[in-house]
């Protein structure tokens, strides 16, 4: 607990990570819905569903490890947690006790998933030393050059775009994570790091029944020399120092559990870019009531396996749908500026105040 105010230390860590992330993203303009306005109408309906699931899971006594596995990646849970705080902040606070339990439950899960820096202020360290050692030993590494580095960049861009097309601007982290940096010097020499880009859940038939393609899960493994890497709350928000084109030493790509060669990588980039271009056009003809429904589905889909573990239907409840039905909500979320850290942490209009208030 903090000495001045009594609240858990993780709130300060969360504050720094969220602030860092937003400061680097802005000015931002995201779609296809005004998510802040949308959350104002939620009326605690999602909390009720989540709380029910948590109660069941606690009662069944599942180990943390099994609960953690229900999330596609830590960034998916971190973002879901951030959106939960918005939903709580904009609510009538009648679920204060329940939200406190929900928040602490998911922070514990996140703590179990991450080996350090749980809100990813700088690093996304999800794998333990043994897992990294196993990756070094089992992955069929190929030597890279600048041409290959560029091809991997194209594959990354295509996969990232597909994640955005499937889950749009607020939920792509369900299907897009970047892990690292992991020290690779024991295997690849001095000043080398491993970065892993993972695209799980690229084939979410449950929310897009008409999807037809073969790509469901893609991983890009890259070892860089003399390159510094950091990422943020949302792991895909990566920043490099150094030349990642010339600094790429070795690489490997896994698609659907199988390692693939460079020609297949080129084909995949092209095909996934075409799939993305087709998928993104779905939104052009989608009325706002449909977009609201899709947003509810995305919101619940973050917890798809979690609800399954609880034996519950993952889909939005009628109460959730009624809460936003026929409500006037715009198509863009626009945030131009963000306050300095000190101001942000005390602001009654932001999530940190709401979290600290749980402990008053």
């Amino acid at each position, binding site marked *: 607990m903090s000495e001045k105010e009594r609240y858990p230390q993780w709130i300060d860590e969360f504050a720094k990570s969220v602030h860092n992330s937003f400061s680097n993203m802005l000015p931002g*303009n995201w779609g296809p819905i005004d998510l802040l306005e949308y959350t104002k109408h939620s009326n605690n309906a999602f909390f009720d569903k989540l709380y029910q699931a948590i109660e069941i899971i606690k009662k069944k006594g599942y180990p943390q490890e099994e609960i953690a596995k229900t999330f596609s990646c830590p960034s998916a849970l971190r973002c879901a947690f951030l959106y939960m705080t918005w939903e709580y902040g904009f609510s009538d606070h009648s679920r204060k006790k329940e939200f406190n339990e929900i928040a602490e439950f998911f922070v514990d899960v996140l703590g179990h998933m991450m080996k350090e820096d749980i809100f990813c202020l700088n690093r996304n360290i999800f794998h333990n030393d043994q897992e990294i050692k196993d990756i070094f030993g089992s992955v069929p590494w190929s030597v890279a050059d600048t041409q290959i*580095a560029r091809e991997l960049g194209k594959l990354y*861009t295509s996969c990232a775009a597909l994640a955005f097309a499937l889950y749009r601007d607020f939920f792509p982290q369900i299907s897009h994570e970047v892990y690292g940096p992991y020290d690779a010097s024991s295997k690849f020499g001095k000043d080398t790091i491993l970065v892993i880009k993972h695209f799980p859940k690229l084939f979410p038939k449950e929310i897009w029944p008409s999807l037809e393609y073969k790509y469901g899960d893609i991983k890009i493994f890259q070892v860089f020399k003399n390159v510094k890497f950091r990422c943020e709350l949302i792991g895909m*928000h990566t920043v490099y120092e150094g030349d990642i084109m010339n600094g790429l030493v070795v690489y490997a790509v896994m698609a659907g559990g199988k390692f693939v060669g460079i020609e297949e990588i080129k084909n995949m980039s092209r095909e996934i870019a075409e799939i993305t*271009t087709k998928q993104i056009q779905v939104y052009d003809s989608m009325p706002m009531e449909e977009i609201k429904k899709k947003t509810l589905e995305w919101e619940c889909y973050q917890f798809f396996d979690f609800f399954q573990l609880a034996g519950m239907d993952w889909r939005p409840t009628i109460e959730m749908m009624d809460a936003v039905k026929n409500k006037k909500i715009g198509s863009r979320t626009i945030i131009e500026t963000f306050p300095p850290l000190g101001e942000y942490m005390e602001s009654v209009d932001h999530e940190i105040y709401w979290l600290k208030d749980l402990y008053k």
Partner: protein
Amino acid sequence: MEKLILKGVAASAGIACGVVKIVEGVKDISKFDEGNVLVAKITEPSMVIMMNKASAIVTDKGGLTSHPAIVSRELGIPCVVAAQKATQVLEDGMIVKVNGSTGEVYIIE
């Protein structure tokens, strides 16, 4: 001769020259050639085919971890974000030099 025409946030290092193509979405795919400089208010998934062909990206909006910035770093191409009026000042067919290390865009006359 080069003339500084825009200044924004340096988001991905490197220097590239190319022909400007103002891009709004899928409809622009047919006009976008390999090596063009992609100029947009902000990039989005519908532009993926064009981003994979671009020699540089310049956007009106965005920050250091915005979509165009992240993608450009992965592609190893220069990128300038938050250039404010890039889509108004630049026009299709202009030849520009993008310096992603300084955040500057020059028109080549």
